[in-house]
């Protein structure tokens, strides 16, 4: 069977108690005393139809809470040889640096024990909190020793734009360990989901993730992250990608008029993205018409940007066909295997 790498799946933490075995006595007791039972963020409320595809919704509890379920519902039906687990339990939103560090380390250890150790096809992203950068770097260094951690994971909505220099030690650690920076849909909610404040509907919150990614890509470009770290790969996960051409045209236009402000930006935005930025396939916010999709792919301008993903168990498409109309077979092959392998150097290594 040809290689296929699913670059975005979501094992779920059932509740905080599931993480207690991975915490010290103090934090475990404190969590029980204070009634810290769950950290599911409003990015993905359990009951919302988008959070769980109906055929993957269990009778009770969360979907994708075991390696067996993931194998049965995702790896085998879609024929994936490897999958990257991106845990979305809302630990990034904790304000206390110590509490955040406790839960982040617990999530990563839980991931290793409950998933990576149980299915050799699974890989994972290192979850970090951006509340304290030194602690985040410590956690990256701690987890990176296990080669099954293939990426660093942050959310699209942050307290400050991700290009800001205070975040750069994280990118330095990423480069040192050969880990791409994965930016996933969702927000720490340090700021409202839109620059106009809080919308009324979940539909608006979710659509706003696409705007969050656009702001972040602009920030990473203007601040010079790609110039300072020319080997860093940034992967936008569950971001949508059909907004990319228009954004690149716009950044390019203003780069033309305002590059005096960012004299280090010596490569065009399109070139930077071709070299260093990738996108997970799902969701596809695109036209249903195959010819129109082909035009859109021409606007994207490179066959190396998209990485296969199902976004399991989120409800982004129906049935078993992950690609929409308009993708030819050779492009599908690149998206399934070549592009992920080129993006994640650790994937090419055998299982430990």
């Amino acid at each position, binding site marked *: 069977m040809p290689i296929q790498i699913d670059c975005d799946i979501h094992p779920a933490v059932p509740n905080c108690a599931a993480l207690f075995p991975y915490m010290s006595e103090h934090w475990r007791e404190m969590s029980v005393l204070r009634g810290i039972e769950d950290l599911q963020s409003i990015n993905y409320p359990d009951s919302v*139809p*988008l959070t769980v595809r109906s055929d993957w919704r269990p009778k009770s509890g969360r979907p994708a809470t075991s390696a067996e379920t993931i194998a049965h519902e995702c790896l085998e039906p879609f024929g994936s040889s490897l999958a990257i687990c991106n845990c979305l339990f809302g630990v990034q939103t904790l304000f206390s640096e110590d509490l955040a560090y406790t839960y982040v380390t617990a999530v990563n250890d839980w991931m290793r024990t409950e998933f990576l150790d149980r299915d050799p096809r699974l890989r994972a992203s290192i979850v970090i909190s951006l509340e304290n950068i030194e602690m985040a770097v410590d956690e990256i260094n701690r987890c990176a020793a296990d080669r099954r951690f293939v990426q660093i994971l942050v959310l699209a*909505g*942050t*307290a*400050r*734009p*991700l*290009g*800001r220099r205070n975040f750069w030690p994280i990118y330095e650690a990423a480069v040192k360990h050969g880990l791409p920076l994965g930016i996933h849909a969702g*927000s720490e909610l*340090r*700021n*409202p*989901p*839109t*620059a*106009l*404040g*809080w*919308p*009324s*509907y*979940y*539909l*608006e919150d*979710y*659509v*706003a993730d696409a*705007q*969050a990614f656009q*702001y*972040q890509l*602009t*920030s990473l470009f*203007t601040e010079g992250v790609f110039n300072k770290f020319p080997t860093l790969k940034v992967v936008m996960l569950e971001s*949508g990608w*059909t*907004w990319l*051409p*228009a*954004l*690149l*045209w*716009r*950044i390019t*236009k*203003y*780069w033309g*008029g*305002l590059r005096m*402000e*960012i004299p280090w930006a010596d490569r065009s935005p*399109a070139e930077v993205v071709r070299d260093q930025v990738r996108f997970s396939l799902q*969701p596809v*916010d695109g036209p249903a018409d195959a010819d*129109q999709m082909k*035009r859109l792919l*021409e*606007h994207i301008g490179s066959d190396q940007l998209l990485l296969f993903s199902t976004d399991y168990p989120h409800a982004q498409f129906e049935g078993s066909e992950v690609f929409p109309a308009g993708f030819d077979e050779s492009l599908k092959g690149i998206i399934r295997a070549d592009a992920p392998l080129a993006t994640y150097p650790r994937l090419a290594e055998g299982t430990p």
Partner: protein
Amino acid sequence: MIEKLTGIADCDIHPAVRSMADLEPWLSTRWIEHFKTYGALRNTHYVTGAPYHKSQPNASRRDAYPPEGGPQGSSLEFMRTQHLDGNGIGFGVLNPLVASQGVRNLEHSAALCRAINHWQAEMWVAKEPRLKASIVVPYEDPEASAEEISHWAGNRAFVQVLLLSRTSFPPGNKRYWPIYGAAAEAGLPVGIHAFGNSGWPATSSGWPSFYMEEMVGHAQTSQSGLVSLVVEGVFERWPSLKVVLVESGFTWAPSLMWRLDRNWKILRSEVPQLTLSPSEYIRRNVWWTSQPLDEPENKRLLADIFAWLGWDRIMFSSDYPHWDFDDPTRVIAFPASDEDRRKFFIGNAHGVYGV
């Protein structure tokens, strides 16, 4: 052979005051004195100047200073010579970005808006028949805004209601509905121009570092604003309301419509107020102005965007006298039919603004 157009419609021209004293004929002593002592407080940082410093003074062309002095855009005579005559403009919509909208003291905001509307009508439109004005409203006080619209309704000097894109709540929020109700009743389009001060950081991830990010970000912020208008049901409530997104870009619109439609299908149970798909409302109720045109290296790709959105939805704007001005002779740099060009440069604006 490309047809040489005259009588071009420019949907975004910025008249400037020489100083705020220009508004004094229409302000009471109370507000004149208030302004001199306390200024016009907005959700922003410096007494003068912007937190993201512009690329040049007043964000305007260095060749647009009037010979008689004053800032760019403050002389009708020079605007006539340099822009209206110079670029073959037959119809221009004035969008004054003078401190008034978004002023925190709502009574001060209302007083300034009223004065600016008088100033536009009497100092610009009355003297130059090619120019039409926008009703500037104190949008953070929607009831006062509705009164301002009613006050000028029927006055043919005004062709739209003007909001800025950075409102303090998403613009579809119910608190703003009196504005849309009054605009619909007056039969006026609502123009939403980039900028303003929402009181929130300029991105959903906090304050960026650069003016360049602020400028690029207007596109994303306008996307969020449009999503709000659609999802809250503004176009369901006022099916004939016209909204014009000004200086926010438009090349992002097809992707946003695909994203909205796809997620609406999944999450429809949350928004039963919508009887049409989001893109159907947008295609019925929304227009875009062209400047700044976000351009690919291969200009022909833009023809796809025009085709997908429709040549009848995009209207030429120059942004005169601002630095990122678009020249009508150079803006469409890819093959387009004379018919489509006429819609873009003239026909669409005449239809939307009823001239």
